């Protein structure tokens, strides 16, 4: 197990290094210039003169060759210094410290909602004998699956914030309020629900449904029933645990998609997280912030995949047994 983790950690490190180099190269290939964006912002959106752009580019060291700039950045980055934002001059680390926790909170709650919802709805659809219920769930999932995440977000906004006025429509808190659970919770509801049910929820629920339905008449389930085990034991241990393997495997990969979804969700709900920061940074060509956000996102996705693998291994002993060179199982 330790070896497995070590190997995965090494892979993760390589992925992050490759990601940073790729990110740097791609940003370099992108047209336009960060100096142009900075000066445009400092003159109310008016295009700056080409001479001014050249001067600032020189001051910013943007005229150095790409490997030199990457080397400079990497040397600082390994010491934990991601530089300063081009746009605001704030340290990138400081910006991340401000934004990452909000995105972590939002995505964590959304993942929980999504998982709980998918298991509940999927199991219900798999086990019910009422055609209307199954069809109802199917129709709902079909509609959800066909709806882009931001449409779901806007719908929620209109219904629950504008029309019913049950929830505030944006931001993590009322301005000036200290960060408390009671203060954040009502603000978290709409973005978390939008993120949880607007992104691949249909896929997840269907994976649970097929995973469970497939096993309903499997020999080991029949056997368990014949032995007179309690229904709950049969469902939880013999149906759900093996039935959730495809869903869990897909979930590990899906976290990446969820984070991408968080970008749009944060924009719509004025949620001060990494996603919103990334969109603003991309718009302003704020490369230090953008590179760091890409890296952080990359790390999270790698970690999520790892967690997904571990969860599958826990659910399905066969995965553990086929781990090369034995392992502990």
């Amino acid at each position, binding site marked *: 197990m330790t070896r497995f983790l070590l190997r995965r950690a090494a892979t993760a490190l390589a992925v992050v290094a490759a990601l940073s180099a790729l990110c740097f190269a791609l940003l370099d290939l992108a047209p336009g210039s960060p100096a142009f964006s900075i000066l445009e912002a400092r003159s109310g959106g008016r*295009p700056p003169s080409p001479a001014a752009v050249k001067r600032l580019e020189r001051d910013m060291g943007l005229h150095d060759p790409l490997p030199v700039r990457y080397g400079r950045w990497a040397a600082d980055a390994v010491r934990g210094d991601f530089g300063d934002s081009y746009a*605001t001059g704030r340290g990138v680390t400081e910006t991340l410290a401000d934004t990452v926790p909000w995105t972590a909170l939002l995505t964590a709650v959304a993942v929980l909602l999504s998982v709980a919802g998918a*298991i509940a709805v999927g199991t219900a659809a798999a086990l019910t004998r009422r055609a209307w219920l199954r069809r109802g769930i199917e129709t709902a999932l079909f509609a959800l699956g066909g709806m882009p995440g931001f449409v779901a977000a806007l719908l929620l906004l209109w219904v629950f914030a504008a029309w019913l006025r049950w929830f505030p429509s944006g931001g993590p808190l009322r301005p000036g309020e200290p960060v408390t659970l009671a203060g954040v919770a009502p603000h978290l509801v709409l973005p978390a629900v939008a993120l949880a049910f607007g992104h691949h929820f249909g896929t997840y629920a269907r994976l649970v449904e097929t995973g469970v339905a497939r096993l309903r008449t499997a020999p080991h389930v029949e056997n368990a029933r014949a032995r007179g085990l309690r229904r709950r034991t049969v469902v939880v241990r013999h149906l759900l645990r093996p039935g959730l393997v495809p869903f869990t495997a897909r979930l590990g990969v899906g976290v990446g998609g969820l984070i991408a979804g968080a970008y749009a969700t944060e924009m719509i709900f004025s949620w001060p997280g990494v996603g919103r920061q990334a969109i603003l940074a991309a718009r302003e060509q704020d490369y230090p912030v953008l590179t760091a956000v890409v890296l952080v996102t990359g790390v999270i996705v790698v970690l999520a995949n790892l967690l997904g693998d571990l969860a599958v291994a826990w659910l399905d002993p066969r995965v553990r047994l086929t781990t090369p060179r034995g392992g502990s199982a």
Partner: protein
Amino acid sequence: MQKPALALGALAAAATTLLAATGCGTGGSSGGRTGGTFTYALGDEPDTFNPALQDEHTDPVTELVFRGLTRHDAANRVVPGLASSWRVSKDEKEYTFTLRPGLTWHDGKPITSRDVRFTVEAMKGAGADAPLSRNFTAVSSVDTPDDTTVTLKLGKPFAPLLDVVSAGLLPEHLLKGKKITDAGFGQRPVGAGPFRLTGYKPGQYAELEPFDGYYEGRPKLPKIVVKYVPDDTARLIQLKNGEVDGAHVQPQQLAKVRGDGRLRVETYPTADYRALMFNFKKPVFADRRIRQAMNHAVDRDAFVKSVLLGQGTPATGPLDESPYKAPGAAPFTHDPAKVDELMKTAGYAKNAQNLWAKDGKTVRFELSTFAEDSSRVAILNVAATQLKAKGFDVVPNPRPRDWVRKHWGDLEAFVVGWGTPYDPDTSVYGPFHSSQALDKGGSNYGTYSNPDVDKALDRARDTSDPAERKAAYADFQKALAEDPPFVWISYLRTANAVPAALKGPARRTLGHHGYGFFWNAEKWSW
């Protein structure tokens, strides 16, 4: 069988997840509230609150926190700010300002003439970092004979000087030895304006409280919160819900806001105009009669009605909203007969496709703009349709912003935006003087060149005599009308919703992006 029960149980669990999520909490307070904190939502959050890094526009927080030596009144005339008075030498090369007595910064430190010297030198020295620095290149030295007197000496007369020293004064004791782009100061600014910044959460909001030491007395609003809500729809919902008291609203949202009795809409004109710029390196634009004809071919009222939903006024020149607008300088009307006449005298005739042609060549050009800017794309489409209907072979083609940034010189025609409510020099010298051509590193992107325009612009810059400047700008506008560099389309209006009970907001012609709504917030109350 227990199966249905289990299925129902699972469904109940699903429902509980949803309900647990939706059970608690309510929206903001709704309606009718007066007094207390005034919360205002807008979309754009500035990168910094440092006024030295904001040129031709000032975001609301920076405007509330800072004051300059001078400021502008409701008619955009220069009036005393931190300086109570000033004297200009006969040769117009020496400006002596007297500071109001007993001024302090928000942190309690006294404001002295040395802060003025520091500000001018810092802004001038910012160079590549700050577009604003161009306003101070004329200053050769700054003398501080005593704590409340400061003299700016110029190499040669520079008429807009009183205007440019309206830029926020910077505190020497906090910025000395630091770069002008210092993030600490940019996020926690200290100024001498009516409100001081008491809290700032990047990406969320800024909190401001009245400054006791403000020279006109403590402002009446107990607190202002500026909330950053980038999504237009979310901003409207927050306004309707009462989560915010006021907000910047888009033209298409006005109808929804107007029906709300709790709100009042403040609609102000701006000096921000949209026009079609031509690249004079392309021979197709050489004949000025073609450009005059196109200025008569567009129906500006239709633009205002369809594209801007009424939130604009027809534009016929760069100074329509300026005190320097010359009477009778707006010769361009929607006049199809005039188009025919001008094109025929230019030697053109309609071809089989009903397009103007001469020697088999039509007036063919690509009209472009930033593809990301939906309102400019709308202007582009309507302009292309109108011009095509009048016989001009326009090819509409919006292009990505990043592409445009690298290819200004290759564009044929482009939807641009310029204009300032303040001294005209800042927004006409750059785009129209031949010394500012693109190749020379300036912002005359179309490489427009007209000796009469150059002469008039130089004259207007080198004198501060109001009558003489007025005459110079009248000549400038006349020369532009005869040899139009642009097809002028429309000035934009900006709309803000505020609580019906809020007293004080006053109409003024605002600048780019409609910033400046808070220009007299020290007088607001509710």
